[in-house]
């Protein structure tokens, strides 16, 4: 891997957004993900190469540490900010089709539930993992999830819920999506959920943390 991509991955993992950002203090004044990504493109590296061997490596590293309780939410958020700064340079290539995402992830909080903190964290980590994220927001009806799946063929679906009373809407969504578009993979998450519940409603996977969602996507597309 090119040295610049190693540096880029390090900046993503440590949340170094750009040269002017004061965090982390020991990298103060040094180039961040913003400058390094632009430089990598200027050096002629392919956008997919930068994504796979820079951004994804960095986000995977922080995601794994988070799932092992080695880092905290602020560390993940800073990494996501660095990743977003780098993605701004890559986005035109993905929009034009010159570069391609690993897949598409349709995510939302289920109907009746307005909580989005966990869902947003998952969306950030999955995007950093090289996937196109279609974020449907909160209080999303089963029909809206289905429309998004139909509009993004082959997409994997992520359902989030914080309230036990809205978990029932996960089951409705899983049923509707799988019945209308057989083969669609669905992963569920949220504070009150368990693997047992995921199995009961016919979801393909449950993850207690964002990295689990990313690992599931990687395994599903392998």
């Amino acid at each position: 891997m090119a040295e610049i991509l190693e540096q880029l991955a390090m900046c993503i993992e440590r949340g170094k957004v750009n040269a002017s950002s004061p965090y982390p203090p020991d990298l103060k004044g040094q180039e961040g993900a913003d400058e390094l990504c632009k430089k990598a493109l200027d050096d002629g590296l392919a956008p997919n190469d930068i994504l796979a061997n820079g951004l994804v490596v960095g986000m995977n590293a922080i995601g794994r540490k988070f799932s092992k309780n080695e880092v905290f939410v602020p560390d993940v958020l800073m990494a996501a900010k660095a990743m977003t700064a780098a993605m701004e340079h890559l986005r035109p290539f993905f929009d034009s089709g010159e570069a391609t995402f690993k897949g598409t992830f349709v995510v939302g909080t289920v109907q009746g539930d307005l909580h989005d903190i966990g869902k947003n964290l998952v969306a950030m980590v999955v995007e950093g993992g090289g996937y196109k994220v279609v974020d449907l927001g909160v209080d999303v009806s089963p029909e809206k999830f289905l429309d998004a799946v139909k509009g993004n063929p082959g997409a994997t679906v992520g359902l989030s819920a914080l309230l036990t009373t809205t978990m029932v809407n996960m089951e409705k969504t899983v049923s509707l999506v799988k019945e209308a578009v057989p083969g669609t993979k669905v992963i569920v998450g949220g504070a009150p959920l368990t693997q047992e519940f995921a199995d009961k409603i016919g979801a393909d996977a449950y993850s207690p943390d964002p990295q689990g969602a990313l690992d599931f996507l990687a395994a599903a597309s392998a």
Partner: protein
Amino acid sequence: MDVEEFEADALIAKLKAARTGRNDTNGGGTQAALTLRERFRRAMFFQEVAVRPNFEFGYWETTLKRWRDQGLPEHVVDEASAYEYFGIENWVMVPVNLGPTAVCEHKVLEEDEEHQVYRDSMGCVAEINKKGDKSIPHFLDFPIKDRASWEPFKKALDPDDPSRYERIEEALPDLAAATMPVGVPGGSLAGTPRNLCGFERIAVLPYEDPDLFREIVDTFGHCIVTVLERVLPLIQVDFCMGWEDICFNGGPIIHPAVYSEVIGPWYRRIADLLVRHGCCVYTTDTDGNIMPLVDVFVDNGLNTMFPVEVHGGSDPCALREKYGRRVRLWGGFDKMALLKSRQAIDDELDRLLPYVEQGAFLPGVDHRVQADVPLDHYKHYLDRKRELFHVGGEPKY
């Protein structure tokens, strides 16, 4: 009760009811004559108490409505009547405001049959699902975006604002005579700033603008300490309860190192102030996984963990194993067990029993009881808790 949701009028009404006699209905021997307040003090100081306080966290708004179909009497319509019916005891709080005063008027911005969008008196814009459960609103916009938008809140945190103290004088006689434990609010050093800045902003603010983060925390801390310095000489309190809600199942949203450096010293100042006024039970309401923050809490004198949300990642048994008598516990019964079965409820209570018997552990559901908990399960929990832990209160069912 969430301290955040503290309502002066409601507390004044509760104070009137607090001037009642001694609770001698559930104990035996000489301790039968102890008031709930005395029982609380003994329990929280690891002393023997024949009848432990029977405290709970309350219910979702929709829980009591759903239970109506399962046999809950018509007259049980709110937390107060529910506590009376279920035989749950309570405490009272000194009616003083330690947080920001209003910066604007509460206003409904949009409304339809299902949703309401409003701007609250702090300038936060939030949406609630009118037909669903309103446990936590969905915030859409936050008033503090930068240093300029923070400025109005400095004035809102003026400890000299007389409105902070206007209900105290009226309450003092009832507080002094209260047979329930008397608590003083402990304010919020991270939770309210989170509400004003937004979850993502407050999490990264210590890195992106550390000076502003420190200024915000210090302004809140100065207000809290100054108000407490004026209030504590007026009334003997039994505990202090702040509010943070700064953790979720992934741990705290402010890094523990930042928490220790910036927020911890304010807990220490508050704890020292409380001890000087004879109050040694200091807690803050924080859901989710608090485990990474407990060192900061305990090292700075915040010695009581509440509500110790088990499914969120906190564990009262592990806390007692690790910290021994350095931590007091309040809550700690996994609310998810109420959903499962009577056996699951029994198992969870059995798990807690040896730690409750060690003292300074007031067992109760670790958050509001959810709407999908069967009434039958809840009653079983209360009955078994009463039998196993010898808690007070007289059920009416």
